């Protein structure tokens, strides 16, 4: 990507810049996030071209002389498919055949990129306009270049499938005019395609890394190798709340292949303000070896003593969180009407408490990173969702200019929020800078599960007041470990649907590190809220789907800017799901549960079917309806929703991490249960067709799953579930029922 910049062309709006390449072809740089923001942060009038370089751009397209297009995908791929779907949008407007497009992962370098984060299902939503603009503008430049070559008016020329045609039927391939196009002024206000003319968007494009994945080619962080690289395995305190007292490395150093044993953590500690809460900076011990196995073996041979500060257990958390719910210390996050009055005047009040455990992320590829810190540069390679944060932090920690830090992003063996936190990349950099060697830090599964940034344990207490057969008030309290719901979550359904409404939050500060976990907060909140509504429907003698639709009428036309879910879109999604899933028409022995939830700008409804096998509920099928606007890549979209639903079911059913004196209850898959194939229902996915701008899919399929199966399990067994994981509590309750 470092290329000769012999011609410069910048549009006044300045979101795109082109350059001819010395070796032939052209390069287009654009800024995904500036281009889609309402106000550009770059100067409006740019005269001095030489003052601009490619620093401001975070994405690139290269068109070769042969007309082949390489798109450098700026967003890290964590399995959510953006590495395929984002380039599809560019290719659509550029109008090139998809098989002429090669997609490469862009590296992170402060010089060349601005913001790169994969998280919050925002990649497609934020990139939609910018990607289309870029494709369309580039296409227009190529047309203009061809027209100039022919000496005809550009408006008489057309481009399609990588070929420009004039009125006489003469043609140029894109590759034949790149040199001229790169020298032209960037046109403005180029018209975008009518969605009905789409040829690539809306068609199935398989995962761009497919061939490498199925043949086992190097692709992931752990697959990266460099001449002279050594391996590091890190010993951390086994329990949260412990600190290293002393260690004896004699036995570890005697292990064949072990090169050195070092204590580290001081450098990270010196700038720890930024990592408070998610990274443990107590001094750690790294075993450096010439193979992964030797490093792991060496670590096992270390003899360390720990000193204890404050050791917490799940019982303490339960007590503290319930105390918060019973108490009065809350932050009010949204309040409408007068909840107190509504409750005082109610015919009946229903109040329920919902409880969830901690959850580890368990990305199948354990955390790892390669670092080579030397006098010249800081070279980092591996799977990370937040390269920009990491680069800044590491520069500060090592006292180096940020320009020295270069991060190459590999494909990630799962993210789920874990790779938003750069503890492992910081560790790799610190170790490399200490031993002056390129090093790959490798977490064992035990390290990965035992030193997590877990989904925090949360409890919700939800109460509703009922008067004259209507829900008049709704009061939700959240008590969570470390941090509370963020952003617009307090304004999600049923905000705007119930006149007297209040959401309050409180938290308990723990030394157990916690952070974002796929669909933060809503991954559990959706279950709590939607089970509660199921119970309300029962109480009111209403159909569960109808109750939701009735309530949604109240939010239609709202002027409240905080309410971003749409009553109409939610209703359409619910209706589609109910229709496709035959709501209310289950055959004998099949029990249905319904759930609808909006998150990450996407509306989703799910209907679960449960059957009883030897008295135990088995989830057989889930029908999901999704409104994510235009579906860019249907096969990828369905994959995301299916995965999200099954992930949601798996964690609601089995996910459980508790603590005893700071020790997590599980460190590997022998005592941590993840969903496996025999527990999976078939997931059928339907999309609402409304032609609106696309929204994200990496997360929104997950939250409704827990609620849908809980409601179906209730229908099948008569048991209401209030705590996750369901298996833990379901068995007991069923046993009671059976007597």
């Amino acid at each position, binding site marked *: 990507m470092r290329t000769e910049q012999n011609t410069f062309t910048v549009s006044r709006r300045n979101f795109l810049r082109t350059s001819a390449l010395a070796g032939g072809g052209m390069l287009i740089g654009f800024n995904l996030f500036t281009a889609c923001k309402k106000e550009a942060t770059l100067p409006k009038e740019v005269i001095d071209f030489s003052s601009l370089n490619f620093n401001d751009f975070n994405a690139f397209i290269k068109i070769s002389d042969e007309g082949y297009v390489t798109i450098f995908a700026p967003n890290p791929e964590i399995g959510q498919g953006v590495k395929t779907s984002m380039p599809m949008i560019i290719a659509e407007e550029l109008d090139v055949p998809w098989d002429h497009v090669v997609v490469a992962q862009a590296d992170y370098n402060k010089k060349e990129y601005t913001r790169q984060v994969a998280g919050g299902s925002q990649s497609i939503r934020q990139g939609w306009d910018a990607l289309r603009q870029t494709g369309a503008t580039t296409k227009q430049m190529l047309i203009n270049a061809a027209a100039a070559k022919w000496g005809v008016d550009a408006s008489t020329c057309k481009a399609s499938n990588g070929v420009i045609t004039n009125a006489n039927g003469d043609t140029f391939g894109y590759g034949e005019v790149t040199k001229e196009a790169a020298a032209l002024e960037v046109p403005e206000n180029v018209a975008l395609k009518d969605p009905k003319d789409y040829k690539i968007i809306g068609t199935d494009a398989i995962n761009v890394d497919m061939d490498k994945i199925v*043949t086992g080619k190097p692709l992931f962080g752990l697959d990266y190798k460099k001449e002279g690289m050594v391996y590091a395995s890190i010993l951390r305190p086994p329990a949260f709340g412990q600190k290293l007292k002393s260690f004896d490395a004699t036995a570890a150093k005697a292990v064949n292949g072990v090169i050195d044993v070092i204590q580290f953590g001081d450098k990270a500690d010196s700038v720890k303000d930024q990592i408070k809460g998610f990274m443990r900076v107590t001094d750690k011990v790294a075993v450096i070896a010439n193979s992964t196995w030797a490093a792991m*073996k060496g670590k096992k041979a270390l003899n360390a003593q720990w000193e204890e500060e404050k050791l917490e257990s799940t019982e303490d958390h339960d007590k503290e969180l319930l105390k918060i719910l019973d108490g009065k210390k809350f932050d009010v996050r949204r309040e409408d009407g007068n909840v107190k009055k509504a409750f005082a005047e109610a015919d009946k009040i229903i109040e329920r408490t919902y409880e969830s455990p901690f959850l580890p992320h368990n990305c199948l590829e354990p955390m790892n990173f390669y670092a080579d810190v030397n006098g010249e540069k800081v070279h980092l390679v591996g799977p990370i969702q937040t390269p920009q944060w990491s680069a800044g932090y590491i520069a500060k920690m090592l006292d180096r200019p940020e320009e020295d830090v270069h991060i190459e992003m590999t494909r990630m063996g799962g993210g789920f929020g874990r790779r938003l936190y750069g503890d492992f990349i910081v560790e790799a950099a610190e170790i490399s800078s200490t031993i002056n060697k390129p090093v790959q830090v490798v977490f064992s599964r035990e390290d990965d599960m035992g030193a997590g940034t877990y989904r925090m344990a949360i409890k919700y207490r939800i109460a509703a007041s009922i008067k004259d057969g209507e829900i008049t008030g709704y009061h939700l309290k959240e008590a969570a470990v470390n941090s509370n719901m963020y952003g617009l979550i307090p304004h999600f359904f049923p905000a705007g649907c119930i006149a007297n409404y209040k959401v309050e939050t409180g938290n308990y500060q723990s030394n157990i590190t916690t952070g974002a976990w796929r669909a933060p907060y809503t991954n559990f909140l959706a279950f709590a809220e939607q089970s509660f509504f199921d119970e309300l429907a029962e109480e009111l003698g209403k159909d569960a789907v109808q109750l939701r639709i009735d309530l949604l009428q109240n939010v239609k036309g709202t002027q409240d800017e905080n309410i971003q879910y749409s009553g109409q879109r939610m209703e359409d999604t619910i209706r589609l799901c109910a229709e496709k899933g035959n709501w209310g028409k289950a055959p004998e022995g099949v029990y249905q549960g319904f759930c609808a939830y909006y998150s990450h700008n996407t509306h989703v409804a799910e209907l679960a079917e449960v059957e009883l096998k030897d008295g135990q509920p088995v989830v057989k099928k889930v029908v999901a309806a999704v409104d994510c606007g235009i579906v860019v890549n249907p096969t990828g979209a369905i994959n995301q929703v299916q995965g999200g639903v099954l992930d949601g079911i798996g964690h609601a059913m089995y996910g459980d991490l508790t603590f005893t004196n700071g020790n997590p209850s599980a460190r590997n*898959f022998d005592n941590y249960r993840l969903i496996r194939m025999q527990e999976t229902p078939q997931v059928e996915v339907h999309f609402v067709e409304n032609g609106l701008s696309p929204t994200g899919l990496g997360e929104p399929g997950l939250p409704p799953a827990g609620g849908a199966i809980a409601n179906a399990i209730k229908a099948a067994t008569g048991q209401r579930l209030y705590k996750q994981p369901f298996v833990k509590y379901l068995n007991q309750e069923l046993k009671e029922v059976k007597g």
Partner: protein
Amino acid sequence: MPNYTLNVNGQSMSVNVDADTPLLWVLRDELDLVGTKFGCGIAQCGACTVHIDGQATRSCQLLVSNLDGQKITTIEGLSENGDHPLQEAWKEVDVPQCGYCQAGQIMTAASFLNNNPNPSNEEIREAMQGNICRCASYNRIEKAVAIAAKKVS
């Protein structure tokens, strides 16, 4: 360190490693065959599945010193051109999400289909039970194995 001669993907390869080194790390660190993945190290996830004389085996629990001339096949050697019926089915169904577990899934399925070319859906679900897919691409794995079975038989 002792020397071991291994038969990997039809080739004879020699390595100097400790006797207690699991095959997984020999493949990944010594032979640069990184298609076989590390997921748990305790035979619980299936990411490290290879074939030993055609049978699916977890390489993280198999010590290099316990291999005695057996034929080792890794994902890299499953087919010459990446066109094993399972690899073809995987592309057709667009199975992977993050992709990390998929080599292990394919290796498990390949040995299963060798032993049972005409499986029922229930048999497929049972055979694949030992392989975790954290992204939960299970519906598509199930479908792709069924499609490959049709291609094989």
